[in-house]
Structures are given as structure tokens and as C-alpha cells.
């Protein structure tokens, strides 16, 4: 009886939290409704989601642009992973000069915009050395070198996250340093670094768009350049950019889901 009376006279914390939540929902719905009413849907539909223009983008947006974005990213990732592993091992090496070189490299390429590195490999390096670097090589070098700095730090953290006892146990069984790293430490580090490494690939997918700075032939267009070229015709509106953006999401969203999968798997492993 007494509790019923109290409920009528004052609110319990749970009731207060419920009212608080309902107010937030109400505000959110109001904002969406006002935005919906104020928007000129006709113009938006025509400029951003024009079905005729969307249809125009196919199949090239997939067969050329999406394909090239994936190729550029993959090339950069292969070089980035190889260089990154080398740098990570240098960074944890007992040889001090290796550590210095790795630190210098990582700080430099993490610190300068990727854009500058693309310009350097696209124009400055070929000019300075009088050589020709083809587009695929340029994107591989620029993306790979920039990303290797990030990947190196990810790998180093992963290698150092493997308990020291694992290395000691391997060495105690008579394994050499490199054998212990290859057989025992690196396989465990890979599990730890898969989630952050997947995030690196997402970043690289987007950074591959920087290649648009260089003169590309139509067959070399990747998504960003492809979209940019398509909006140059006045009747296209901004629809090609929306299509290009959606194509990026086709790559990055599954990668994000994959990263979360790896994350929960790693969490489960370390919990056990």
C-alpha cells in the first residue's frame, strides 16, 4: 500500500529515465520531420538520385572504377604490409640504428599528408631522376609507403602484445630467434592485429582516390576520378558522386563488419 502511494506522489528513478528517453525520441522525430518538410525533394531526387544518370554509370563504374580502386588498394596493401613488417621488426630490434631508421621513417610518412607523397611519386621523383613510373607503380609506391608507416605501428603493437613467456618458452625449447618469431610469436600477433589491419585497408581504399591527381587514362579511372569526370556534364548533377560513394561503401562496409568479427573473436580468445 505504501509503495503505491509513493508512486503516485513522486517518480521512481526508472520512471524518470523512461520520460527522459521519450523526450529525446520526440526531439529526434521532430528534427527529422522538419528537415523532411523543408527539403525540396524534387531537386534532391533530380540532382542526387537521378535514375537515368545512375543507369548511365553502369557498367563502367563496376568494371573499370570499382575494379581499379580494388587493384590500387591491393597493390598498396601488399607493399605496405611487406614494408610494414620489416619496419615493425626493425622497431623492436636490439640493434639501435635499425630502431632509429624505422622511427624516422614512420614519423615522417605518418606526419606528411598522403597527398604530398602521391605528388612526389607522380611528378617529383620521375622528374628528378628522369624516369617514368607507370600509374600502377606510382599508386603502389605512394600508397604502400604511406600505409607501411601505419601498418608498422599496428604490427609492432601486435608483436609486443604476445606475452614474453611465449618467446621464452620457444627459445627454451632450442628454437632460434627467427624460428621462435615465425613459428610462435607472429602467428599469435596476426590474430591480435587483424581488426586494426582491416581498418587500415578501409583507410587505404579511400586514400587510393588520391591518384586522381595524376593524369589517368579512362581505363585507369578509379571511383573518385570516375565520379568527378561524370559530373562534368551539366545534366548529370551530383548523382555520379552518389554512385561512386555507394561503390566505396560496397567495399568498406563489409570490411568493417569483418573487422568487428575479428574483434569479437580476438576478445573471445583472450578471455578464455
Amino acid at each position, binding site marked *: 500500500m505504501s509503495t503505491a502511494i509513493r508512486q503516485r506522489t513522486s517518480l521512481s528513478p526508472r520512471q524518470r529515465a523512461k520520460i527522459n528517453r521519450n523526450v529525446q525520441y520526440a526531439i529526434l522525430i521532430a528534427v527529422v520531420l522538419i528537415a523532411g518538410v523543408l527539403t525540396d525533394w524534387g531537386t534532391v531526387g533530380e540532382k542526387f538520385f537521378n535514375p537515368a544518370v545512375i543507369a548511365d554509370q553502369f557498367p563502367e563504374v563496376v568494371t573499370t572504377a570499382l575494379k581499379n580502386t580494388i587493384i590500387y588498394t591491393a597493390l598498396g596493401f601488399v607493399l605496405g604490409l611487406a614494408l610494414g613488417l620489416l619496419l615493425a621488426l626493425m622497431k623492436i630490434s636490439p640493434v639501435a640504428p635499425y630502431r632509429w631508421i624505422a622511427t624516422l621513417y614512420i614519423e615522417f610518412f605518418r606526419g606528411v599528408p598522403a597527398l604530398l607523397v602521391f605528388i612526389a611519386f607522380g611528378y617529383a621523383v620521375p622528374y628528378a631522376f628522369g624516369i617514368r613510373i607507370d600509374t600502377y607503380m606510382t599508386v603502389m609506391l605512394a600508397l604502400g609507403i604511406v600505409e607501411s608507416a601505419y601498418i608498422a605501428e599496428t604490427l609492432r603493437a601486435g608483436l609486443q602484445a604476445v*606475452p614474453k*613467456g*611465449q618467446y*621464452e*618458452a*620457444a*627459445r*627454451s*625449447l*632450442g*628454437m*632460434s630467434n627467427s*624460428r621462435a618469431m615465425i*613459428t*610462435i610469436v607472429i*602467428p*599469435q600477433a596476426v*590474430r591480435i592485429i587483424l581488426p586494426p589491419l582491416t581498418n587500415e585497408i578501409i583507410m587505404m581504399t579511400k586514400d587510393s582516390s588520391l591518384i586522381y591527381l595524376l593524369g589517368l587514362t579512362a581505363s585507369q579511372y578509379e571511383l573518385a576520378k570516375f565520379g568527378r569526370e561524370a559530373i562534368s556534364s551539366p545534366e548529370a548533377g551530383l548523382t555520379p558522386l552518389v554512385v561512386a560513394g555507394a561503390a566505396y561503401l560496397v567495399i568498406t562496409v563489409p570490411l568493417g563488419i569483418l573487422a568487428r568479427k575479428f574483434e569479437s573473436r580476438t576478445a573471445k*580468445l583472450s578471455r*578464455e
Partner: protein
Amino acid sequence: MTTSTSSPSQPADAGRPGPVTTASAQGCTITDLHKSYGDVEVLKGISLNVEPGEVVCLIGPSGSGKSTLLRCINLLEEPNGGSITVAGFDATDPDVQIDAMRAQVGMVFQSFNLFPHMTALENCSIAQRRVRGRSKEEADAVSRTNLENVGLAHLADRYPDQLSGGQQQRVAIARALAMEPSLMLFDEPTSALDPETVGDVLGVMRQLAEAGMTMVVVTHEMGFARDVADRVVFMDGGVLVEEGPAQEVIGNPQHERTQSFLARVLHADGTLDG
């Protein structure tokens, strides 16, 4: 042992009771060993001789340097001075074949350090294959024999996270024995275990001692030290305070520091177990 043999290979000690070949047991001689971390001297001139087949327990308060001493024997810690001869290797020679030496010296850790990405069987086989150069079949056969000797043949395909602490530690012992070492080092092998699994691990170690393995054991298990060790060494503050037959050092310690340490641990334990 050749690796190219095509016949289904039998491990050298298959079918023989007891987990090790005793004929290969070797000793260890430590002379005036010094070890410092920065300004802190952890070992202040330790000399200790372990005969082949002898079981020596190192006891003492935490921070007394007993684990450091043990880790110096297989060079997980690098000594600053003195000399160590172990399993026929001069460990303090800068040109020592460190990997060959370690393959002869089994090490069991407090935290097991099983490889979590490998099954119990793979844990036991990996070093045999990569270090001893045995074929997979040959290594697995040796591993199964050793897992059987620690009572875990039926769990060979489990991963470490599917095993209890006591089972993991027994796999770790089997892993070390699969290399057919001539001396075994134990660094507080039961300190991280649930009380009810301690007995299984000590049982395996007891069996190993009876089979004639040379063992150096850092332990807080006074009952085990008293019953199994040939000799007990009490360390405190980086020096070897007292050593002697197990019954004497534990039952009738001469040195005042040994007496107060034993009074503390035995009082905390209530009593000595079996």
C-alpha cells in the same frame, strides 16, 4: 637419430615405464654467479653443483633470486659474472651454441606458456620438428608417449584454453620432456595452479625424479621438497644461505634466516602435506 627413416619410428623409450631415459641425465655446475639489474645485484656470487640424476629444490622468500638463478642456467637471463656448465655446455662462453644447449635443458614455467594456437600434441611436437629435425610422424609418436606419461594422452587434440591449469602444466612438462633433455628446470611450477590440481603436477614431477632425471626446482611446496628433493638450497637476498639434504634443511634448519623463513611458510600452510 636420422630424420629420413621411412619405417614407422618408435621413440627410444616407447613402452618403457617412467617418462625419461635416465642414462642421458647430466648435471650442472655454477661457480660464483653474479647477476645485476642496473644497480640492483640480484645474485651475489652463487656456487652450486648439481649431480646427474640429482633433484635440487631452491627455496626462499620472493625476491631472493632463486628464479633468476634458474633462468641464468638456460640463459634466459644473462649472468654478469661467474660461470655455468650445464649438460656439457659452457653456458657462459660467449660462443656457446645457445640453441643446442637449450634443447638439452628442459624448462617449465610458472605460467605454463603453452602455445595457445597449437593443440597439446602440436605443442609437444613443434620443437622436435623444428629443432631436432624429426618428421611429423616421429615427433607425434614421441609426443604421444610423453603425454601418456603425464596422464593426458586422451587430451592430445585439445587446445590449451580447453585444459585446466594443472593439465596445461602437465602438457608443458611433456613438451619439455619430448625434447629428451638431460636436465630439467622448474620455475615455481605449481604457484599458478588451483590447489586441487597441484597434486597431479607434483605427482608427475615425483615420477620424473624417480626415473632419474636431473631436476632443479624453484618451489614453495615444502612437502614436495622434503619428500622428493635430494638436496634443498635456501636462498635469501641473492646469496645461498644454507644447503643440505632435504630432511635436514627443512626439518632441522641451522641458519637463523632459514628457520624464520620456514616458520613463516609452514605456519601459513598449517602443516606439511604428504
